[in-house]
């Protein structure tokens, strides 16, 4: 690390240090979990994941944590993503295409409205 020569530089160093630390925090207000079993990947979960990451990047979202999980036993409904906002119960979406993933990000993650037509119905 180079020497700090002014108060402004010190403030920048502080922002860097905070950013570095935030990268380490596991806590986020929203958690999006993408099922990444072989079935999921075969059905296009990688593309769905990419779409979610792109949305976060282009919209500049913060506080969103992306996690992966394996096959949840509903292979015919892959790609599956689960969205958890705050303390609300987990919502599971099935057959999520790239466009639908973007829609879910916009409506549910940002807007807070569950996209009911894409939710896997309880049997």
């Amino acid at each position, binding site marked *: 690390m180079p*020497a700090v020569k002014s108060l402004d530089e010190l403030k920048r*160093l502080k922002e860097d240090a905070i950013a570095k630390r935030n990268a*380490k925090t596991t806590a986020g207000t929203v958690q999006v979990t993408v099922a*990444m079993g072989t079935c999921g990947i075969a059905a296009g979960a990688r593309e769905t994941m990419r779409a979610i*990451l792109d949305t976060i990047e282009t919209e500049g979202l913060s506080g969103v*944590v992306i996690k992966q999980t394996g096959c949840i036993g509903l292979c015919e409904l892959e790609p599956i993503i689960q969205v958890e906002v705050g303390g609300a119960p987990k919502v599971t979406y099935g057959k999520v295409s790239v466009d639908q993933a973007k829609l879910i990000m916009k409506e549910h993650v940002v807007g807070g409205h569950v996209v009911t037509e894409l939710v896997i119905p309880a049997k």
Partner: protein
Amino acid sequence: MKYYRTHVLVCVDPECLGKGAHDIEDALQDELVAQGLIDEVQVLETSRIGGCSHGPEMMVYPDGVHYVGMTVDDIPFLVEEHFLKGRIAKKFLLPRVEVKDEELSAPTSKEVRVVLRNCGKVDPENIEDYIAEDGYQALGKVLGSMTSDQVIEEVLASGLRGRGGAGFPAGKKWQFCRASKGTPKFVICNADEGDPGAFMNRRVLEGDPHAVIEGMIIAAYAIGSSRGYIYCRAEYPLAVRTLNIAIKQARALGLLGEDILGSGFSFDLEVRIGAGAFVCGEETALMGSIEGKRGEPRPRPPFPAVSGLWAKPSNVNNVETYANVPQIILNGAKWYASMGTEKSKGTKTFALAGDVNHTGLIEVPLGINMREVVYDIAQGIKDGKKLKAVQIGGPMGGCLPEEYLDRPIDYESLAAAGTIMGSGGLVVMDEDTCMVDIARFFMEFIQDESCGKCTPCRVGTRRMLEILQRICKGEGKNGDIETLEMLCKQIRATSLCGLGQGAPNPVESTLKHFRKEYEAHIFEKRCPAKVCKGLIRYDITDTCTGCTVCLRNCPVGAITGDRRKLHVIDTDTCIRCGICMQVCNFNAIEIN
């Protein structure tokens, strides 16, 4: 800004580098490219994940997974399993050992953490962690926008008093030192924490060393000093290590050394290690020790602010005092002065010990009463017993009985009650404690640690100890109490330093509040708390079933009796070890 869903932090400490951390990093990059994940997973370098003994190591976030011991060949598997499929590769997991912090737990609602705010929160060996918590921002503010006088004004207005125990206003000390003629001036940190059972300062040095360093730099700027020392006791090797690492990192960033933050102000410091003498916590003895001389106090005046280290103006404060300073500068004197009482502002750390349910470090606003500390924070006395006394202020402090529980903890109230604030030792004693025995214990410590320079302290404390030992053995005689009182007065009046002047405190305070116990020992040959071995005897009551357990366990063969018959203890042979009482299943042993 580029968004990565996963961050991999690879440890690049020397030890991990030696185990191939760079190769692991390269392999990770290559594999992430190969599997098309390079835009989603970011690889960063870091230090100190877990101590490197299992290296190479990496941390994966947001999952918070700690991997150790992988080789380059394992990387493709790891990347596919975890980063592509999201499955944790169990074979590289470090078995997680949950370590409970016995010293410092989460604050209760009555506590306010100022000095301890970063302990356990920041990595003490990583200056960036401290900077992320507003570290060195106070220094920036001071150097960028305040004059020395303004800094002193601010500290004066905050009401911060010396946390080493005597409670002299820190701002005033700085003012005197600033006004003194002579260069160079020295800034000294007293980290010679020696009170038995007290570890408030150690915890700050080990957990948040930069707070102390920052406080010292600010003090140096205020008094016009360019050189500082931290005098740390040798019994704190980890604190010395952490301090040295912290100083090195602060130097590398230019926060210590020439022209700090481009302000033209220069200051540097180093750690000096004590050699185990308790008296070196006294400021003049401490400075003698830094100079390489025998650690003995010298008369004051001249005070250190006028003629201190190498006869130059010096400012000595302790760890806690300095650690408060950056917070005062950042949040303002008003904020600090809003806590505490009229004359005792801010917070104080205490090391809670003794017969309470919750022991360890606490930090409370001054003015809180002892009852809140004992019953709310320390969760009351163990085993539902009654409180007998609270010993506050270290070995030269005093014991306060229950009637004092509702008085506030501040410098003046404690002095009025016959004890001192001290550096923060706080021992709670239950009804089974003998106060004469406690006085004897502390006098033993003081007598042992007297440096010997002043005859009243050297010889007087020895005589006091002998009398106390006699009383505890049951050989006390009429006039002992009066002799103790006379010695107390004389030692206090004729000793140079705080050790001798405070030496009578444990005896005086117990005589004041528990005189009856002394009298019971001397005149009735009885120890009311049943502690002093010379004054108690063990007897077997008729609930004895004759099971022979005590007989078989007695180390000196003092117990006799036939199977299924009442057993008897021979008092002359008995050494009062209490083993029979511990092993008896029928509560048939009693102390008389």
